[in-house]
């Protein structure tokens, strides 16, 4: 498939009522200050500063789509796990379930963000809200891999990883792309993807049968090493040191594609005795995360189980590099380094992982 055909494909999807989202280049001068804080833009590497930022936006014109090795500033997480979603609407005492209806096509999902979707699929396997939304999402992956500085585990594109990635359609760069003339090899990864390609009239694709998120054979060595260090060789020094630096802003959790923890709360509506039960993002860096009710401590705080910053940042790492591997047999980090980019105090996961491994 070439660039021209890809553009036709985008228009085809739009006509078929898909809301299309994908990476686009937002020039810096048109960036919404609220979207990206001045602090963060100031910390962007120079080249990006000149060009702007890659953000995932609704694609109106096919030419807006950018498929290269620049990683979108935020991930595709919120399409799968929204910041806030209504589980039930209630009126007096009766609860009504509420499910997603809109069809969404995600174009140009890079390899790292695809890996994160593997995690969502596992974590929310039995969740009817997730599953309803997931069924309405078309994933069009792309072989773009972020430049090595933003790719901690040096993930490369090779055809044999395709069977472990959750996509409907996949575009693999066939040759070194030039700006206006990209050529793609096309794969389908689901019946949904096949149907859409066929209906669009494109036959030159290969089908890949999804065979689960993990490669067969030995478990990932780095995963094993990190998990062993965290579980069996706890080194408090690392966490105490990070605890003195981290200011618990929670930005890393917002930007991390694999952070999914949530809280469930009821919000009253305008009508009497009505409202909604809402599931929304939470962060283990927030004080309330582990709070329980009971008599306050001597310092006047509510009792909680993650008491110090050190404990909280340790909890964050332990989840990604010990609990997730225990549960799903893969590492809970895709190596995108977004967390490091947004951290106002410069905590870099790459460095922390080195320290854990050396401990």
């Amino acid at each position, binding site marked *: 498939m070439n660039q021209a055909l890809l553009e036709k494909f985008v228009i085809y999807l739009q006509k078929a009522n898909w809301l299309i989202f994908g990476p686009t280049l937002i020039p810096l001068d048109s960036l919404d200050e609220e979207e990206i804080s001045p602090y963060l833009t100031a910390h962007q590497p120079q080249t990006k500063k000149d060009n702007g930022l890659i953000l995932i936006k609704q694609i109106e014109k096919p030419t807006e789509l950018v498929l290269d090795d620049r990683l979108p500033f935020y991930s595709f997480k919120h399409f799968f796990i929204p910041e806030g979603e209504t589980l039930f609407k209630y009126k007096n005492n009766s*609860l009504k379930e509420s499910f997603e209806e809109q069809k969404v096509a995600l174009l140009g999902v890079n390899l790292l963000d695809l890996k994160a979707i593997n995690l969502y699929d596992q974590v929310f396997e039995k969740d009817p809200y997730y599953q309803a939304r997931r069924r309405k999402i078309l994933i069009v992956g792309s072989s773009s891999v972020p430049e090595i500085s933003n790719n901690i585990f040096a993930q490369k594109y090779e055809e044999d990883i395709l069977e472990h990635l959750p996509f409907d359609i996949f575009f693999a760069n066939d040759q070194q792309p030039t700006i206006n003339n990209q050529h793609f090899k096309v794969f389908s990864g689901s019946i949904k993807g096949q149907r859409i390609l066929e209906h669009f009239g494109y036959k030159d694709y290969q089908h890949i049968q999804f065979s689960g998120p993990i490669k067969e054979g030995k478990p990932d060595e780095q995963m094993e090493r990190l998990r062993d260090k965290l579980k069996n060789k706890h080194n408090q020094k690392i966490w105490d040191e990070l605890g003195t630096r981290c200011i618990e802003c929670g930005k890393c959790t917002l930007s991390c594609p694999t952070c999914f923890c949530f809280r469930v709360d009821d919000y009253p509506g305008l009508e009497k005795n009505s409202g909604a039960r809402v599931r929304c993002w939470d962060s283990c860096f927030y004080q309330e995360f582990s709070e329980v009710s009971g008599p306050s401590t001597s310092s006047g705080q509510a009792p909680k189980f993650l008491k110090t910053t050190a404990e909280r940042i340790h909890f964050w790492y332990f989840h990604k590099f010990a609990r997730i591997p225990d549960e799903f047999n893969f590492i809970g980090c895709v190596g995108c380094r977004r967390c490091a980019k947004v951290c106002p105090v410069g905590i870099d996961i790459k460095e922390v992982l080195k320290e854990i491994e050396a401990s």
Partner: protein
Amino acid sequence: MNNPYLSEPAKIVKITPQTDTVKLFRFEFVQKVWGYNFSFAPGQFIELSIPGCGEAPFAPCNAAGAKYLELCIRDIGRLTHKLHEMKVGDKVGIRGPYGNGWPIINQKSKIKNQNGEKKNLLIVVGGLGLIPLRTLILGKDKFLGKDIKVQIFYGARSPQEMLFRYEYAKWRENGIDVKLTIDKECANWVGCVGLVTTLFDKFPIVENAQAFLCGPPVMYKFVLEKLKQKEVTDQDIYLSLERRMHCGLGVCQHCAVGPYYTCKDGPVFSYEQIKNIPGVI
């Protein structure tokens, strides 16, 4: 697909005040058949919800096999306060039960030591910690076997704070050794005074004991010391952990302790299993 967040409507059928701030609520499920099929193991918990106030975890505490569900609840926050204002006939939602309760007979881990010898049971509880053990106490013979000796060490702030106090006579009749203590000296109290640990100094613990603990974290620290002195092994100590919970399903991460979820893998853990996790107690 089943919706695990959906709760079953249940009606309050009886309210019995226990202390100034604690009431025992009896519920019946609106869907009778569903209700009759509802069962739980001692030590498990449910999520109770009131639209507008959200959800919170509580431990069912009625006698096993009853056609109703009993929850003993302290008025302490938004949801519990609303519940305390409710009357017989009002409705709440209940989902669950969740987690793993106390190790009992007809479960994989029977109350036996490695030699297959049966263990007696020492229950050490403080404050509200007695709640998740009431079902076990009421169903002692069924859950533990007839020949198991049960001893309870229970500490409360004052005699008026003692939960289920009108039942102790019956428990004693049933052969259970109930030892009580209150935090501070007060009129009309002739029993032991001091934290629950003082009971260890006053009375010998039942021989060949396994211990079940439930209470505030500070209590665990001191009770564990006492148990160590009495040479109860870490494998023979079980404790119920309290953590903040939002899903009850092992997903939201609020209740995680090391590699475990309190909601799914607990709330009851053997001390052996969790003792090396930093900050667990």
